């Protein structure tokens, strides 16, 4: 009998072929990510890393193969809405906040239809925004927030229903270096507080260096770490540098 806990994320021979272009964006990928692990997924443009992330977020359907999240196959979900709202939190490069809603409302939309009451959703959204350092910015709409602040709102929204997995697609791609560093520090802190499993797609070696493990992709396949660019391995995350407070 195997008493080992199931990996937080597991893919088995996962393949995605785009029907219109016949491109094998993800080609037989099998990987395991343990609970509480932070993994960075890197690779050149078109390597299939975002496609893999979208498959894991159930935003797209694989052509073949399996995805198991906390031991459960996504194919066994009759309704993926619950999976999207409760099991994973998704963060995009362009934050994708609704411009006509304020920060608090943008977080609350993730709780619509989940059975969370009106007051509780408002309280929880305010607490989440406070935890990402935006307690005083809850009433502001996205156009009034900086890029880094918008991404923090998106992070708060991703955490709204207490997922165990955070999937982030280039979350620092549209931020300057300081804001990117600050967002990475936030990722590190919330992972510690919530024991989150994080899978983060990035081009940035410095951002990749923040992860426990770096997975490289090329042409839709995972490649050996040894074949990847060595740059990331020599970088140090901001909270490990001398003089860092490890907080935002």
């Amino acid at each position, binding site marked *: 009998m195997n008493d080992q806990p199931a990996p937080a994320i597991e893919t088995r021979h996962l393949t995605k072929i785009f029907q219109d272009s016949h491109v094998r964006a993800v080609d037989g990928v099998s990987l395991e990510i343990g609970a509480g692990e932070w993994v960075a997924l890197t690779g050149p443009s078109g390597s299939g890393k975002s496609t893999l992330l979208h498959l894991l977020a159930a*935003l797209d359907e694989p052509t073949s193969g399996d995805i198991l999240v906390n031991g459960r196959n996504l194919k066994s979900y009759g*309704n993926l809405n619950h999976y999207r709202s409760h099991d994973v939190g*998704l963060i995009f490069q362009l934050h*994708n906040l*609704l411009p006509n809603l304020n920060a608090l*409302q943008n977080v609350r939309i993730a709780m619509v*239809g989940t059975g969370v009451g009106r007051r509780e959703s*408002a309280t929880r959204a305010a607490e989440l925004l406070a935890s990402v350092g935006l307690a005083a910015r809850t009433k502001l709409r996205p156009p009034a927030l900086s890029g880094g602040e918008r991404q923090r709102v998106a992070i708060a929204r991703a955490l709204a229903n207490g997922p165990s997995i955070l999937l982030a697609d280039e979350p620092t791609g549209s931020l300057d270096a300081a804001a990117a560093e600050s967002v990475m520090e936030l990722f590190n802190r919330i992972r510690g507080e919530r024991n989150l499993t994080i899978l983060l797609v990035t081009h940035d070696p410095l951002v990749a260096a923040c992860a426990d493990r770096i997975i490289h992709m090329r042409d839709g396949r995972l490649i050996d770490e040894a074949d990847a660019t060595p740059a990331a391995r020599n970088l140090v995350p901001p909270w490990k540098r001398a003089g860092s407070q490890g907080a935002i």
Partner: protein
Amino acid sequence: MFFALLILENVYTRKVRTLLTGFTIAVTIMTVVAMGILTHSLRETAVSILRTGTADFTIAQEHVTDVLNSSIDQNDLQVIQQDPDVKSAVGILVEPWRLDDDHPFFLRIGMAPEDTEPFGVTLVVGRLYAADSSNELILGYRAARDLDKRVGDRLVVGNVDYEVVGIYSTGQVFGDAASMMSLVGLQAQVRKPGTITLAFVQVAEGADIEAVRARIEAALPQLATIRTESDFGRVDRNLELLKAANTGVSALALVIGAANVLNMMSLSVFERTREFGVLRSVGWSRIRILIYVLAEAFIVTLAGAAAGVALGFGVVHFLQDVPTLRGVFTPTFSSDVFTRALSITFGMAIIGALYPALRAALLRPLTAIRHE
């Protein structure tokens, strides 16, 4: 609750579009309400004259454009009176006259004085005209008030200078805004001797009304008996045409309104494609997206319709004072008109918003999120 607030927020955020769409819907519903009330009121007024008195049914010439154009030979009245089950048959001649700009449709009703009581006329003040009088009349109390006439005053109608000898009431708008005079006198004046417009029939107690009607229509096929409102179309095609026009306007309103809602919601869904993708990515179901879009359309449509009903009332109020309709048209606010307006409103919202709402709901999350 927050979901409802989100919907309202979306409506509020797109103020200009909401106002323009709401305005179009308001104008559409205003037309439906005004046209509906006008048609209903005109029909009510016209039908009311056929219901005056204690008659069991009314007789008019069949297939005339307007019931007032009906022409019945007085000899036919005698045929009707001879039916063993007919208790009484009263004939009247109705002649409209343009008194002045404010009273373009003033009615003169010629009737034998002994028939006024069974016809349902109650003399309020004064006396009845003489049976063979050519210059005496009694005025309905509405007409007397409107013309500021009292017993003893004189009123020139056509080229006849009448003396007002009494004021009467019938309980019907049409009758109370008219005048009554000797049947023989009016027939002579309008050169229609031996002719009446309508006949009012009362059957003997216990007699089969439908059987009497059938016998009359068989004996006098040029005539139609009218007992119910639905029979009215047989003797007045104008109102039937008006009713048909009203139905046409309603259908057109539905199409125009739905097209506007479709236009607004299609544009809105297109602009917000990425938003729907985000909402799907955070776990919103397709049904919730569908409701989200439909509810938005319903709010705009209902708000527009509410304004439209208010505007409709305003238009009806205005029409009431239009000289050509004064005295003929008294608004009656039927629940049918509002039911129709409400049905059209819901129809506009559903037909107009269903396609965009389905489109939003069926978007693939990833495709929607990538939408530029």
